[in-house]
Every structure is written in C-alpha cells, then in structure tokens.
C-alpha cells in the first residue's frame, strides 16, 4: 500500500552549519538519513536530542532549504541541502 511504502523511504540530506552554529556543532557539515515527510521543526528537535551542544542554538537558528529560508512547518524535501545559521551579519 502506498501509504506504508512512503513511511519506509528515508531521505538523505546534507546539513551545513555556519558561524556560531558551526562552532557549537563542532563540524561544518553532516550527512543525515531522516524519515521522509519530516518537517523543519522535527529536524530541529531531532538535532537537539542527538547533539546536545546544539540544543540552545536550535531555538533561534535560521534554516535554509536549498538556499531559501524555511520555517518550522516546511517539509524537508528529498536530498535537500539544509543550511543552519544565526541571523546574518554581513556588510
């Protein structure tokens, strides 16, 4: 059945961390298998659990999916590149 099938598909995503988030993560990037149909909120919760150092950061982190800002309700698409960073401070 289609519904059950979807639940078994995993999604291979690439996470990129910048600035303070990278410092706290201790790595620049991470490849991760996450369940399909996961939301940004779910992903942040998962990272808070799996990487305790990121817990505080996940409250205010900005998230970009494939170079566009994304918010809690967004579904993480297949093979997404996810950027995580604090508010920008260029110029």
């Amino acid at each position, binding site marked *: 059945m289609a519904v059950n099938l979807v639940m078994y598909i995993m999604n291979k995503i690439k996470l990129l961390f910048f*600035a303070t988030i990278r410092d706290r993560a201790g790595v620049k990037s991470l490849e991760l298998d996450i369940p399909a149909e996961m939301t940004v909120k779910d992903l942040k919760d998962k990272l808070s659990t799996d990487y305790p150092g990121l817990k505080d950061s996940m409250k205010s982190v900005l998230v970009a999916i494939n*170079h566009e800002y994304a*918010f809690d309700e967004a579904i993480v698409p297949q093979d997404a590149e996810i950027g995580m960073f604090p508010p920008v401070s*260029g*110029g």
Partner: protein
Amino acid sequence: MQSSNLPTIFSITESEIDLNNLVAQITLTSTGAAAIFTGMVRGVTSRGDEHETEYLEYEAYIPMAEEKMKQVADEIREKWPVIEGIAIVQRIGKLYPKTPTVLIACTAAHRDTGVFDAARYGIDRLKEIVPVWKKEVGPNGEEWIEGDYIPKAGE
C-alpha cells in the same frame, strides 16, 4: 528599461574590492549617475559598546549568498525600474581596519531617479537576508557578531 540586458554583478570574493572597475562594469552609454556604498572595517567603534577591533573574519554560505544578492538586485529593479546597472560585492576572509568589505553600486541616467535610495536599500537588504557572518577579533578576544533580522517566508 529591459532588465534582461542590464548589467547585474554579484559576488562573494576574497580579493580587494575595485570600485573603479565595478562602476565601469555597470556604466552604460545612457548612464549619467552612480550611487555607491562601501562599508569598511572600523578599528575603533564608539557608538554603543565602545571597543577596538584588530580584524574581522568574514564567512559566507556562498551559493545561497549569491542567490540572495541576485534577489536584492531583483528587488531594487522592481522598486526603481530606471536603475541601469547594479553591483553587489561582499569580500570575505580576514579583513583589517580601513579595508572596504562590501560594495553596493547602482547606476541610472540621472541622479534624481532614486539611485541613492536604491543603493541604500541594497545595503540594508544585504544586511538582512544575505547569509554572511563576521567574527570580531580584538584585544579582549573574539566574538561572533549576530544580526537581528529574522527573514519572513518568501524572503
């Protein structure tokens, strides 16, 4: 103005920002005015928390930053359709006081076309949505500078 044929430059670079060259690249035969903003590293800051800076270390999420710079340029053209050329450049890496770190330049036929407002808008938007960060290194150690703008959906 046919925006598809108009020069739009956006780049993240580790090289020196060359104002002469960038302005020349966005000057058309119909251009009579350029408004340019450059920001530079302050060695001494007296507004707010007074402090000294030894250098700033800039980093960018390069492909996204270039897309967001293009978006800033598109927003400028939508608001000021008479703008002819646009250049948006962010320098990254370790940058010392007095060094230009960013440039926004807009050209138009005349100076009373909004060309100054367009450049001002460009630097304001860059500091809101273009993913670039800087770490400040000074006599009391180092600290990431954080902005305070939270992009909204669709930005």
